[in-house]
């Protein structure tokens, strides 16, 4: 023992100090942990929204015998391709006129995604189609969601169109606006002006039954969320009414997809914050993770097929101004693509 050093003092000093190796290990560990913690904090909003919006349990009621009798005659189904799936896209007016989960679906698009051939088929279902509802009785198909949420909408489409739906995505009206704003707007070619003197001023106005004038001029343009919503939602000045609107909805979906390809993973929290509770899906997070790169790989516009149910597939004259489906024709059309 060297002179001048008391044994107890040295022991205390040694207990209060760490070796360089331990110190270095601790520093590296601390940097790694805090880096991960910073990343976790950054992605927390996106994770929360994803957790709340995805993997929504959906109860699909089995159709009643009467409804089975009503189902279209079977027709040959397309050859199943590996990995192909069918999604029902639902868009709702969820302004203050309605209570949550009792909203109409102004937009219903049946989408078949075929990853092997990188093809997408979008079939717009007219919201005024008069059908047997899975919850019982008959009515416009846009009411199915209001009677039994996504499960009822899925079951109604499945039983009436004779297709199998794997997944659904529901977006509220404000969700569309916020998504488009969060991605910085979209570029659209409006092939004709959309003029409407009695467009519902129910999103940001104080009185949800009020009207506003809308004029989306023709030609290529960059649309923000509000104007994109006006473009897809207006139907008064279109002879094709809901059909014309469906066509515009498909254009906007494609424009969103095109813009979304420019996004980086770091954009997710801002996007998630913007969407808030305006999106619901039964997709699990694992499937979402698979779909993001898949969506980016669909880059051939000619491989995206748009289908509208125009006359003679539907005819006017059903109760309440709704449309009578010609199930024979619809069945043949639908089963060319949808199993």
């Amino acid at each position, binding site marked *: 023992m060297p002179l001048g050093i008391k044994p107890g003092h040295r022991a205390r000093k*040694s207990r209060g100090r760490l070796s360089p190796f331990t110190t270095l290990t601790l520093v590296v560990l601390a940097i790694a942990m*805090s880096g991960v913690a910073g990343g976790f904090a950054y992605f927390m909003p996106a994770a929360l929204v994803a957790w709340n919006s995805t993997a929504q349990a959906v109860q699909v009621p089995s159709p009643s015998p009467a409804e089975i009798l009503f189902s279209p005659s079977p027709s040959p189904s397309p050859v199943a391709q590996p990995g192909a799936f069918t999604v029902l896209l639902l868009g709702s007016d969820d302004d203050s006129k309605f209570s949550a989960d009792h909203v109409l679906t102004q937009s219903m698009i049946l989408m078949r995604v075929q990853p092997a051939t990188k093809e997408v088929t979008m079939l717009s279902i007219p919201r005024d189609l008069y059908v047997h509802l899975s919850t019982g009785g008959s009515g416009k198909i846009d009411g199915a969601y209001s009677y039994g949420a996504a499960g009822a909408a899925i079951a109604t489409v499945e039983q009436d169109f004779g297709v199998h739906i794997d997944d659904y995505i529901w977006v509220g009206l404000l969700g569309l606006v916020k998504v488009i704003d969060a991605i910085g707007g979209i570029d659209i*070619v409006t092939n004709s002006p959309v003029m409407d003197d009695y467009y519902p001023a129910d999103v940001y106005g104080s009185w949800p039954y009020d009207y506003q004038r809308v004029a989306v001029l023709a030609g*290529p*343009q960059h649309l923000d969320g509000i104007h994109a919503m006006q473009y897809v939602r207006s139907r008064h000045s279109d002879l094709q009414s809901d059909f014309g609107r469906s066509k515009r909805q498909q254009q906007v979906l494609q424009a969103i997809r095109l813009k979304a390809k420019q996004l980086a993973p770091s954009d997710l929290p801002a996007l998630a914050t913007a969407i808030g509770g305006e999106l619901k899906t039964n997709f699990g997070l694992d499937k979402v993770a698979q779909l993001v790169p898949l969506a980016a790989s669909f880059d051939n516009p000619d491989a995206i097929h748009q289908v509208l149910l125009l006359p003679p597939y539907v005819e006017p004259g059903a109760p309440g101004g709704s449309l009578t489906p010609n199930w024979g024709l619809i069945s043949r059309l639908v089963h060319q693509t949808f199993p």
Partner: protein
Amino acid sequence: MISKFLLAVGLAVVMVATSVSSYVYLGSRQSKVAAPVQKPTAATPRAQAFVLPGTIYLAQAGALYSFSAGRFHQLTSEAGWMQPALYPDGSHLVVVRRFASYSDVYAMTPYGAVTAQLTDNAVSARNAWDIGANDWSFYPRLSPDQRTLWMSYDGPKIVGANYFDVDLAVWALPLGASIRQGKAWTVANSYTGGDMQPVPVSGGIMYTKFSYDQNGNRVGQLWFTNRAGAAGRALTDTSAGCLEPSISPDGNTVAMICTYQKQVSYLTIASWSGASLGPLQTVVKDQLVAEPIWAPDGSGIAYLAPGGPAAPFQLWWLPRNAYAPPAPSPIPTPSPTPGGPHNGPLPTPAPSAAPVAPVVKPIQITANLGFDATSPLAWSG
């Protein structure tokens, strides 16, 4: 050996710094898709920016800007101003001011001072309960003699009639006169949006008419009419989906965009005989082109198009050589060898490849801006 206390303090500092840095770093890695556009006057001109001749008038976010010698000047506040068009003598502009439920046409100096309100489209206070009784005026133009104002207009209306069909027709009214002295020149097709973008040409008006094709699609078509109330005639086919006509300074060529009923917009030109258009010639195919306008000196065409995929619209310039390449210089013919009569066959000239015209590409003039692509440009010499 390091004291545990010091190490703990150091680690705490390092951890806070690292977590904040990682958060900030991830934030900085966001894409620029949602980055707000710059004001044209805030954008720094590039050191070797391409300078266009004359002055171009454009609209962004409801404000009018002039662009000359590579610099922007803001003419108005951001208050719904759009669609500038020059008086033929260049002394003034006619512009649209768009409000929530109506729009009006104003006369303005080239420096942004309003000199007159030329329409009065707001519904009176007494009838304010009927929002549909307001009117739109868009795409104003003046006749060459500056006496007639041309525009697209959806009035007049009967209060309380609840029109669901809003179609604009091309109207002409004496400059400064009331709409009661105006006259509808065209009859719009119902439920199409109507007739837009009138352009005075020799002997009449060229405009975009919207109609339903045989498949029920609403499409644009260039039309011409030379008399108020006359049926007019189509200049392009519905399948081409052409709109936004712009007549060249010499009056012999029309620039337009054609969409072919798809999400595309090609810059297209065609000769104009005064009665009909020649074959359509696609000049720019790989951009979403909007609002083409000819340079007053005929040196090219300016237009708006996105600065990147799905991005806001920027100003672009297409030099004349891109669509009217200069004629190749003649290949020299071999001359007889000097120095007397030639015995034997004449030498065959070596085959020279035909001169290849250099590919002239559009030039992007601005970046990070966001011009209103539904607002035609005006260009003074």
